[in-house]
């Protein structure tokens, strides 16, 4: 069963056709990678899914409901979490405080005036946040200032913040961009572990083919705003169309 259905999405920026008639279907509990050369429209597509951009035409259905016209926080409350290309975390806060915020958002919704209880008295949520930190091997860093951590740790924290909300769909925008090889491998291991342990669907945008082929169940190749092929990883590797799009080889 597909959890995310993108149908006939078009997006134009002035004279540039960023997305042209994109159709995409992400099946539940799979890892779906979206790849393509620079300027293929990967990030535009992602922004259309999370409410940052509004497509000109077409529909985006998540779990039978349209996400178009909703704000990013409403879409998040529907069960879509997003990991950014550069980790977006609360740099001024400690790691555990970073984790508490999505816990509150999950429990209390978009707004609740909780001005007179103390954060420390929320035992259940603290436990949940700490358990998540244990799962991603960051528990010993829980009182650290988030901004002072390494990029790999920030990425790990951001993923933990998304996962603690138990989203049904996790969107990852180049999760290993700008990472050292060792950090990339750590991230791959983390994502594999998440995939095995949790009922979660992931849509991942990635440049690094090593990452894509070690994780994806299904791959969509975008080129110049249109999907070129959609297939299993082993069929993508040898596909002449893909090679042409990436390397400019004539088939």
């Amino acid at each position, binding site marked *: 069963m597909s959890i995310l259905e993108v149908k006939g999405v078009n997006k134009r920026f002035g004279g540039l056709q960023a997305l042209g008639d994109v159709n995409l279907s992400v099946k539940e509990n799979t890892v779906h990678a979206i790849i393509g050369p620079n300027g293929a429209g990967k990030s535009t597509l992602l922004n259309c899914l999370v409410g940052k951009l509004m497509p000109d035409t077409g529909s985006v259905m998540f779990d039978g409901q349209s996400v178009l016209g909703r704000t990013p*926080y409403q879409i*998040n409350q529907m069960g879509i979490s997003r990991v*950014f290309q550069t980790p977006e975390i609360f740099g001024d806060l400690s790691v555990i405080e970073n984790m*508490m915020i999505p816990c509150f958002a999950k429990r209390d919704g978009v*707004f609740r005036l909780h001005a007179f*209880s103390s954060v*420390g008295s929320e035992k259940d949520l603290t436990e949940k946040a700490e358990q998540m930190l244990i799962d991603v091997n960051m528990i010993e860093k829980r009182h650290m200032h988030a901004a002072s951590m390494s990029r790999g740790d920030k990425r790990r924290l951001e993923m933990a913040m998304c996962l603690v909300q138990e989203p049904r769909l996790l969107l990852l925008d180049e999760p290993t961009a700008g990472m050292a090889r060792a950090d990339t491998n750590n991230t791959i291991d983390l994502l594999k572990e998440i995939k095995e342990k949790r009922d979660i669907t992931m849509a991942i945008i990635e440049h690094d083919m090593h990452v894509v082929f070690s994780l994806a169940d299904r791959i969509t190749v975008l080129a110049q705003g249109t999907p070129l092929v959609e297939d299993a990883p082993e069929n993508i590797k040898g596909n002449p169309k893909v090679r042409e799009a990436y390397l400019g080889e004539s088939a």
Partner: protein
Amino acid sequence: MFGLDKKDSTLLLIVAVLTMFAPFILNPFPEGSAMAQFNAGYPDLMQRFVIFGIFAIGFNILFGLTGYLSFGHAAFLGVGSYAAVWMFKLLSMNIIPAIILAVVVSGLFALLIGFISLRRSGIYFSILTLAFAQMMFALAYSVLTPITNGETGLQLSLNDPRIFGQSATADGSIPVTSLFGLEMRHTVQWDLGAWLFQFNVGYYFCAIIMLIAFFISIRIFRSPFGLMLRAVKSNQQRVNYTGLNARPYTLAAFVISGMYAGLAGGLLASMDPLAGAERMQWTASGEVVLMTILGGAGTLIGPVLGAGFIKYFENIFSKINDNVLHGWFSFLPDGLEDAIVFLLHPFIGKGWHLTLGILFMLVVIFLPGGLVEGGQRIAKLFRKDKAKNTAKSTTEPAE
């Protein structure tokens, strides 16, 4: 204590002790001595310390937690003052209804202004709040003269109805503000040797209100709501993508801090029942920004320290004049004395703003965390010394 952890309880206790013993602490120099003019322990000034402390505590809930710099907060203080004086004119001289109305009215104003201004952030938000405050100042100063009495300011008169009170006292004067008959101006004086200590009912009332306001602000800082506000300051994008709507959070913070300002305005009017448009001017809004940053934005105690610091300068430093300086330096040879007085002249009396400005710059450049950071650095220094000493004492015997 009251749902606070140990550290916060200690802080609250220290502030409580300091405010309760302020008439002693602020009056260290005996009457008639040369230093007596540095005494700040008289009712009028002490009331200002705590009232502007409340104002700054409220401002800090908005600025310190969310990072939204409002440049029009004095408008709420002014609105609170007008509301309170109207209550004295129409209802009675009891300060409780006056203060309640001041808080409610300024809260409503804050809701309206916040709703519009919070559509933007950063400098645009500051400009919007400044524009609103200036509009309100202009309204109070001229357009709404029937309500605000224009440039003269709103005052009590013998013709006021005062439905639940009396228009005039038996001897034909305007009644004074009171808390169920306990007059705010009532002061007990205690002559102790060369010292004169003054215990004023109004001051103690304001001090208790400030302690309550301080307690509420601690609770807000430690609450999930406070955490969300800090999250908004840190990364609004992530807040949005974590399923939280930042607008109602910031609006709630704006309204709460507007109500604090209204409370301060109501208290000002309760101590001295008049309200003028100059309370809403942009310089007054700038002053609370200075107080908060000088003390330490985002810290609990900082704004109170900053408010005390600035009000002390405004009232004490501005009273030093050339004659006083000549008095201090009279032991020097004539020429040198005149030279020193000449050099110091721009910094005293009406020039206190200059001194304050220089101090403010020094604090912002060298202590970005304000006076609180200064205190922490000193404490750290002492701790280091101690650590060094203990380290020495343990290593020395090894020789």
